[in-house]
């Protein structure tokens, strides 16, 4: 038990070290790609927080938009500095998540998809319809963040400083969400998914925990939206439309949701495939569509279930390799 958590920590540290080294190796454009990748990782992992209770919220990308719009209004119109606007924007997204989770708390399966979808679209329609303050179809302009006033050489409008800012926030968010996943609340979420009646008979208020999961997930989605908005410098309602939600679903299903690393794996692998297919950019959605259907037919557990599918017991990936070498 202790050993496996040590292994995880070592893996995490190694990954972080690689991510710190990467921007000095790859070219300028790729740095932006990696920044977006990390934003999407936060989005996918925060989505998993909700899916652990069994609900697949289709309002998750609009929640990211809520964070983006909140920070755009706060830092653009009110001049609130980034370090305050980021958690506040996350809080706004979380509160909106709490609001829509109330009617959703007792719905299941079909009704949950559809109602969350409609709620997210309603939020998006508000941005389109109310030109003041949301700017309608044109959206809003977001100023680049001013983090340390007075230090000229650290300009966060540049790609590499922003990359490191995103990295710090991502590592922080992932650590919190991982902690949440292994603590009591996280296991309660999973119990609600697998044994709802048992959870109820144990005195767990399942509806309230579902609302909690949606709120926490929306909070981190809002943080992802803040990072996205300050990098793109402009946001519009179409960015948070349903096609983005579909991409999110594909990432998460492809990676799998039972482990913490599943969604991360899905985002990273599919983003790299999408990047390799860049010359055929028009065809990427179709490739995604085919991948997702094939995944569901032949590998319903996602990429994370691949080791156990090919006969390696869970958590013994490395040891299995050594025994093969011994033979």
């Amino acid at each position, binding site marked *: 038990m202790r050993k496996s958590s040590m292994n995880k920590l070592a893996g995490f540290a190694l990954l972080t070290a690689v991510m710190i080294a990467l921007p000095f190796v790859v070219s300028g454009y790729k740095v932006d790609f990696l920044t977006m990748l990390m934003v999407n990782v936060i989005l996918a992992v925060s989505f998993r927080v909700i899916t652990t209770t069994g609900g697949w919220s289709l309002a998750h990308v609009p929640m990211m938009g809520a964070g983006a719009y909140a920070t755009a209004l706060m830092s653009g119109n009110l001049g609130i500095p980034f370090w305050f606007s980021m958690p506040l924007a996350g809080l706004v997204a979380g509160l909106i998540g709490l609001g829509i989770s109330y*009617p*959703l708390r007792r719905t299941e399966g079909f009704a949950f998809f559809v*109602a969350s979808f*409609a709620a997210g679209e309603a939020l998006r*329609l508000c941005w389109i319809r109310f030109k003041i303050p949301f700017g309608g179809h044109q959206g809003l302009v977001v100023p680049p963040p001013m983090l340390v006033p007075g230090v000229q050489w650290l300009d966060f409008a540049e790609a590499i400083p922003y990359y490191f800012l995103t990295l710090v926030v991502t590592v922080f968010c992932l650590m919190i969400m991982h902690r949440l996943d292994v603590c009591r609340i996280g296991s309660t979420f999973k119990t609600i998914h697998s044994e709802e009646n048992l959870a109820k008979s144990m005195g767990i208020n399942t509806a309230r925990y579902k609302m909690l999961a949606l709120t926490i997930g929306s909070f981190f989605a809002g943080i992802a939206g803040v990072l996205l908005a300050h990098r793109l410098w402009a946001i519009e309602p179409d960015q948070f439309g349903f096609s983005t939600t579909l991409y999110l679903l594909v990432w998460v*299903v492809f990676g799998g949701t039972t482990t913490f690393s599943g969604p991360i794996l899905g985002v990273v692998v599919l983003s790299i495939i999408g990047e390799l297919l860049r010359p055929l950019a*028009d065809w990427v*959605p179709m490739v995604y569509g085919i991948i997702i259907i094939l995944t*569901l*037919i032949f590998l319903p557990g996602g990429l994370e279930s691949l080791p156990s599918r090919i006969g390696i017991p869970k958590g013994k990936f490395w040891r299995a390799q050594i025994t093969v070498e011994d033979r």
Partner: protein
Amino acid sequence: MQFIGQMILNGLMTSSFYALIAVGLSLVFGVMHIVNFAHGEFYMVGAYTVWVLFALLDWPFFVAVGVAILVVGILGLVSEKLIFRRARGNVLNGFIMSVGLVFILQVAVVEIWGVGKMKPVPAAYPQILHFMGATTWQRFILFPATVILLGSLWYFLGNFKIGRALRASAEDPEAASLYGMSPRKSAALAMFLGSAMAGAAGGLMAPIMSVHPYMGHAVIWTAFVVIIVGGAGNIKGTLYASIIFGFLTTIITTFLDSTIANLVNTLVMLVLLAIRPEGLVAHAEK
């Protein structure tokens, strides 16, 4: 009086459109337990079929719509055989598979016909109709066409042996298969009928709406709101809900605008879900 008459007329046509889209979706859900997100794309394919046959090849309008119904019905049948059958009644898997199908169909249409250019479909019946208000025949046709299509679906489900078997299969698949209606056969039939309805809606709306690869998005959303309120899988409830939302949308669009109408529809649905999670008309637990 003129004003109210016009509103009733518009409401009738909006309700017909909603019913045509939502009943097919509801039927598919009732039998197969699949939330078919690609239903909106089926509608889009129906509209494109009419654009090709009627606007480009000058076929008669109703022949073009008939072909659209068949084409989309067969598309539904094929997607059931290749894709949805493998979801095995798992709602989440079926839903995500249909999301994959959305991507595939959209890219296919974009690659074949391009995304930028307008696809104008001329009105087949541009004459003005004066009846409780003014509209074109092209728009009015939607109402009798819906009554005929839904009426024949109703008759088929109620009076034909295979239609009754389909309903039985929706209620209790195991008992129905004991009597010789295999779940596969009923799934294929439901998918064919449901998709054909989407094709009919797309074909009939092609001269009224603008035809483009992403036209399904706006429609699927409304259809979902309607079937949630009507109770998924419940055709009668879906019909009532389409009438309610059709008139609600028309009234709000007349006084405010269509975006507000969509917002209000969603709010109505969310409030209803908070009070009655099982929908307006509770459907039997399976």
